[in-house]
C-alpha cells in the first residue's frame, strides 16, 4: 500500500541522506515524533503512509457524526497529501463544506546519537513547514439553534470546552434527520486517477 508513488503533484523528497553521509563518522541522526498540539478526534494528523481512501473515510465519518469542523494538520512531505485530501472532501460534499488554511513553521529537534564512546548525545534544531486546514460545515444556518442563555457565539479553537457545549446543545435540540447533510451520499470517482 505504498501510496507515495500515486500521490499527484507531490514534490520529491529531498536528498538529505546525501548530506548525512558527510557527518556519518560522528553521529547518527534520530528523528523524534513531532509534537501535537491537540490530541482529540477532531484534529487529524496526516501521514503520507496511510491509505488516502481510509483517511478520507475517517474524515467523512467524523463530519457525519455531527462534528461541525475538523482540522487537518500536515507537515513536510505530507502537505500535498493533506491538500489533496481536503480538496477531495470539499468536492464530494457538494458545497456543504468550506475550508480555511493556515501555514506555520514547526521547530523540530533531532537527536544526534554518538557513534563512539567519547561523545555524548547532542541535539539539532530543524524547521519544517506545516499546514493546518480547517474544514467546516458552511451551511450552519440549516440547523435551528434555539436561543439559550449559555450559548456561545461560534465555536472557538478551545476544543475541550467547545465539545461539551455542542454536546449539550445537541441534547437539547433533537436534530431532524432531513437537516443533517450526509456528505457521503454522492460518491464521485476521484478524477485525479
Amino acid at each position: 500500500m505504498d501510496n507515495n508513488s500515486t500521490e499527484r503533484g507531490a514534490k520529491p523528497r529531498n536528498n538529505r541522506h546525501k548530506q548525512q553521509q558527510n557527518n556519518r563518522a560522528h553521529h547518527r541522526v534520530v528523528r523524534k515524533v513531532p509534537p501535537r498540539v491537540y490530541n482529540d478526534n477532531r484534529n487529524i494528523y496526516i501521514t503520507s503512509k496511510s491509505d488516502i481512501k481510509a483517511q478520507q473515510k475517517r474524515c467523512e465519518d467524523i463530519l457525519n457524526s455531527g462534528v461541525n469542523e475538523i482540522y487537518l494538520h500536515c507537515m513536510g512531505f505530507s502537505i500535498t497529501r493533506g491538500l489533496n485530501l481536503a480538496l477531495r472532501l470539499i468536492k464530494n460534499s457538494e458545497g456543504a463544506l468550506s475550508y480555511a488554511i493556515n501555514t506555520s513553521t514547526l521547530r523540530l529537534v533531532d537527536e544526534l546519537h554518538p557513534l563512539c564512546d567519547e561523545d555524548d548525545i547532542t541535539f539539532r534544531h530543524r524547521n519544517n513547514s506545516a499546514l493546518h486546514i480547517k474544514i467546516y460545515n458552511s451551511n450552519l444556518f440549516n440547523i435551528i439553534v434555539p436561543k439559550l442563555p449559555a450559548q456561545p457565539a461560534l465555536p472557538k479553537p478551545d476544543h475541550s470546552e467547545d465539545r461539551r457545549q455542542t454536546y449539550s446543545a445537541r441534547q437539547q435540540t433533537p436534530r431532524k434527520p432531513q437537516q443533517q447533510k450526509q456528505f457521503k451520499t454522492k460518491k464521485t470517482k476521484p478524477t485525479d486517477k
Partner: protein
Amino acid sequence: MSNQKLEYDAALGGRVTLPTHIPTYHYAAGALREIKSLIADAQQTRSTKLIFQSLPKHMRRRAMSHHPKRLPRKYRSAHKSQMGKSGNTAAIKKRPSRKYRRRPKNLMREYLRRQRRHIWLETHIWHAKRFHMVDRWGYKLPYASCDKTYRACYRASAQHCLVQDISFYCCVELQGNIDLLCAGFARLTSSECGLSIGAKTYLSGRREGSIELFRDGKYPAGALQRASFMWRPITDVNSDKRTLWLWLHPCGATTTIEELVQVFDLKSTKHKKLPLSGEKLSTEDNKEQPTKEETKESKQSNTKEQPLRFWTQTKAFELNRHYANADGTLELLVLKNSFNRFRLTGPRSQEVLANSLRAYQIRETTNSNEPDHWLSQLDSEQRRIHETQANYCRSALRLNTPSELLSNMVLGLNIVDPRLQRPIKRTKAGVVEAAPKGSKPAQLLMDAPACLPTSALWDKELRERLGNKMLSIHDYCQLRQKHAVVPGMPCAFEQSMQPLPVLLVQRPGSQQPRYKRLGYGCGWDIIAPARYGLVLWLTLIMWGARPGGLREFDTVAREAGAELHLPDTVAGVEQAATAAADRRARYFRLPPNKRCNYRKYAVVSPFSAPFGQLVRDWRQETDDSANQFFVLRQRDLLQRIDTSLRRKQKLPGPKELPAGCLVQVQLRLLRRGSLHENAIICLPTRADLKRRLKQLKRDDQAPVYCEPPLPDLNERPRRDLRLAHKRLLKRLRGRRVREKRKLQETSTQRVHIRAANTAALVREHFAEMCRLWLPMEPAATTNSVRRQCTREVFGYVTSASFSFTEATVCAVGYVTAGGLRQLLSDGQQSPLCLVRDPDSRDYRFSSLKVNLDVSMP
C-alpha cells in the same frame, strides 16, 4: 510292618487300603498343611465379588459401595483399596472443603507448596485468575489472557497503553572500579555492535544503554544475549568506584553470570576459606565473622607462615548470591526478585503514569505530627533534587507520546503509595491537566536537569526497610474499613503511609521512519521495590492499562519488525528447540490423512530452521567450522547492505561480510497468501519474474510458482511396516488367548488373559514410523538445504503473522550473505524473493527490507 486290611470305599469305587495306625508327625504335618491352606483361603478370597457384596444379607446397607462408613470397620480399608483400583474416586481421600481450604493459614501453606517448583511473580495470583499460565525459565508466567485480546493488545500498544509484568528479568549489580569494569566488558562484547558499556552518554546514568554479550573472546560467535544496563549516578566524587545494574533475561541469566564471574575472576562468598590464626583457635572466636579488612590482612600474613591452615565459613542461606574478586575491588550481587519491573507500551502510557504516580510533597513544617519515614530525613540538597524530579516528571508526562522525550532516559521519582491514586471505578486515564502555553517539548528534551536519574532505589538497606515497613494490603483495607466514613474518599491515616522511590525508564520505540512507523512500541518501564508489585500493578490496571502476557512480547516485536531473541543467542536456541518439539508433537497427533507429507513437498526441515546447514551450503570453501552461524549486528555494515539493496548496488565483499553471517530482514507479502514460522525464503528465477509481470497485468492472484510434488519413496515401506506391526500385535494377542484357553481348561476358576506388555514394541514402531514420515534431519545428513527444492533456499522465516501496522502479512527472517549477493547480482528492478510455507507447495513473492536495529526491543 503293619498288617493291612482292604476295605470297600463307595466313593472311589474300589477297595482302598487303610493303615491300622499312622505316625503322629505325619498326621500333624498334614493337619498343618490343611490349616495353612484354610488360612490362606480365608485371607485371599477367590470369589469375584467385592467385599460389600460378600457380606451376609442382614449386614448389607443401601449405597454401601459409595459410603465406606456403612461397612463394618474391619472391611473398610480393603473396600477402599478395591474401589481405588477400579478408578472409583469416591473411595479416594476426599478433597477438603472449600471453607477449610480458604482459611488464610491453609491457603498460604498451599501457595508456598506450589511455589516450590516455580517462582511466582508478585502479581501471580492476579494473573492466574485471568491468564493462561506457563512454566518458563523457572518462573510461572502469564502467557496470554483467557479473553480474546490479541487485537485489543495490539491496539493498546499502538494507541493506548499495554502493561506487562517483566519482573522475571534478573538484575545483577556490579560494583567496582570503572576501568576494571570497562575492561571486563570489552572482553564480553565488541565495539562493532554499538557503544560500549563505558560510553560517555551512559556513564552519567541519565540514559539506559544496552549491549550485546558474547562468550569471552568468542565474538562474533557465541552470543549470550542482549542486556540493558544503567549506571548509578555519581554519589561520591572522590572515589572511582561505580555501581552498575545489568538487566538479564532469565533464559540466559545463569550462563551470563557464569561468564561474568569467569571474566572478572570472582569467587562466591558463600564458602569462604578464612585463615586460622593462633588467637582464634577457640570455637567462640570462630563463630564471629571477622570484618573484611581483618581477614584480608590476616590472610596475607598467614599465607606466608602457615599456608595450609584455614577454616571454611559457609553461609547457610544467601538471599542474593554475592561474588567478589580476590582483592575486594569488584563485587557482583545477583538481585533476583528484589525489584518489580513493569513495561508500559503505547502513547497513552503517559496519561496512565501521570494519573497513577503522584510525586510525594515534602512539607516544610516540622511539627510532631509529621510522619517519620525515610523521605522526611532528607537534607536540603536532596530535597531540591526531589522537587526538580517531581516538576520535570509532571511536565514530561503531559506530552502526547513518550517518544518525544530523550530516548532511553532514566527518571527517578519519589511517589506516594500507589493505592492512594486509584479511581473509584476502572476508568480510561484522561489528560490530567492541559499543558501550559510556555512549556515546549524541545525544552524538556534539551534542558533536562542533570539530577534526574538520582534515586534512593539504589540503596539496598532502604529497599529492605521499605519492604518491611510497607503497610500490607490487608492492614490497609482494615484501616480503611475503620476510618473511612464515605467510601472512596481519602482518609487521614493515608497521609502517613510511606512514599516509595521508583525509576522510570523511557523506551523510544521505532526510530527508523523508513522501516517502521516512527515511535511504534514506545513507552516506559517502571522499576519499583519488591513487595509493591501488586499495589502498583492494580493502580495501573485501574487507570485503564491493558494487561498483556508473554505472547504480547512476541507480537509487539513482530509488529516492530524485529525479534525478541535472535536465533544465535542462548534464549533463541532454547526457544527454537521447544517450538520444534511442540510442532513435531502436534504433527504426530494428527491422523495420518491430515498430516502433510513433507517428503512430497521437498521440505527438508519442517519444524525448525536449520541455519547451520544453510550457512554450510552457502559457504564457498569448507572447513571444520562450517556449521557456525551468527547474526550480523554491525550497524554500519547493515546500513551499507540496506543502501545497496535499495539502490541495487553491489554488496560489501566476502571479506567484510563473512559467509557465516545471517542478515535479519523483514518480509512483506506483496499480494495474497499467508506465512508461518519456518517458511523458506528462496531466490526467484527469471521465469518467475516474467510470470509475475504477466500476473500483474491480468490481475491474477494465483501463486507465482508451484513446487512439483516429489514421489515419496517411503510410502510403501510405511505401509509394509504398519501392516507388519499390526500382524505382529495380532499374533501376540492370539498367543496370549491360546495360553489363556489352555490354562482355563485345567482350572476351575475363571482365568484372565495376560497383560499385553507391548509398550516397548509399540514405542519402537512409532519411532520408526516417525522416521519414515519425516524427511531426514539436515544435521544428520549431508543433503543440501540450499538446493532442497527447485528454487534455491537462502533464508528461513522465524516469526510471521498478519501485521496490523503494515496491513499485510509480514514476517521476520534471516538470510545468508551469499544469497543476498546472488539476489542482487540478478539485476531485478527491486529485490524480491520467493517465500513458501513448509506445509504448502505455493511460492509467493515478497519484498524484503533490512533491519538496522537488530534486537531493538
